């Protein structure tokens, strides 16, 4: 497939067999880390990623830690979103404010 240019892309599929489509790319911007964190530690306390069993039930409030690599315009403009893993359109479940 030719190199993509910025903008919307379209793919045409011929036939009725099962298929998958993968789109890969390289970027200088990377969402490198996401963790739910809690404040812990004794003498050198700080924010640490929660183990699976430490994470509270859905609907609970918790702190999240993210790392973005690369050059972006303004950190105040960044928005973090939860989106559904399944279903069309990847429904927006909430924002991380």
């Amino acid at each position, binding site marked *: 497939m030719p190199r993509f240019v910025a903008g919307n892309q379209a793919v045409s599929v011929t036939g009725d067999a099962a298929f998958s489509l993968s789109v890969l790319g390289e970027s200088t911007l990377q969402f490198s*880390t996401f963790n739910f964190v809690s404040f812990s530690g004794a003498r*050198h306390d700080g*924010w640490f990623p929660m183990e*699976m069993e430490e994470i*509270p039930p*859905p609907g*609970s409030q918790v702190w999240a830690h993210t790392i973005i690599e690369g050059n972006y315009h303004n950190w105040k403009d960044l928005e973090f979103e*939860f989106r559904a*893993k399944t279903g069309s359109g990847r429904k927006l479940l909430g924002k991380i404010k």
Partner: protein
Amino acid sequence: MINGQGESDDHGHDGDLFVAPRNYYYRKTTIPKEAFNVYVVGEDINGAPFQRLAPGPSPSPSLGLGLSPSPSPRILGFPFSQATTTPVSAHDIFKGMIPASMSISENSTATITSTCPTCQLTPSLMPIYELFTAGGVSGQVWGRGTIAMLRLVMTAILMWNL
């Protein structure tokens, strides 16, 4: 939101002021009630919009947040027709197995209830519970999940290959 560029009153052991990298972000949020991915959207240095997906397995309420494959309670202590068996959680996230011990006869059913404080199972997710013997998996049953509770109905005939 707290950006890593902010100051901290926490001094390291050598007296230096701790300052987190400016690309670190700390935000308070509410854990969604269904399986999710995490995205960031913004503008790059040229003002062009971008969107990125968080790497790795996303925290998923259905999987106890972040685990793959789905953890399952295991039922130990065969043969069911003769002995008392003990439900055991394979990943220590299923709590309060009821009953703590039980026996079951051929062609009968039994119900095990457990809580899962970190789980949320949706109707579309039908976890498979594996029934273990000392020699390995002896059969499988399918369970239904609801929020914070698992209900497992097992049929003795599935285990009759012992």
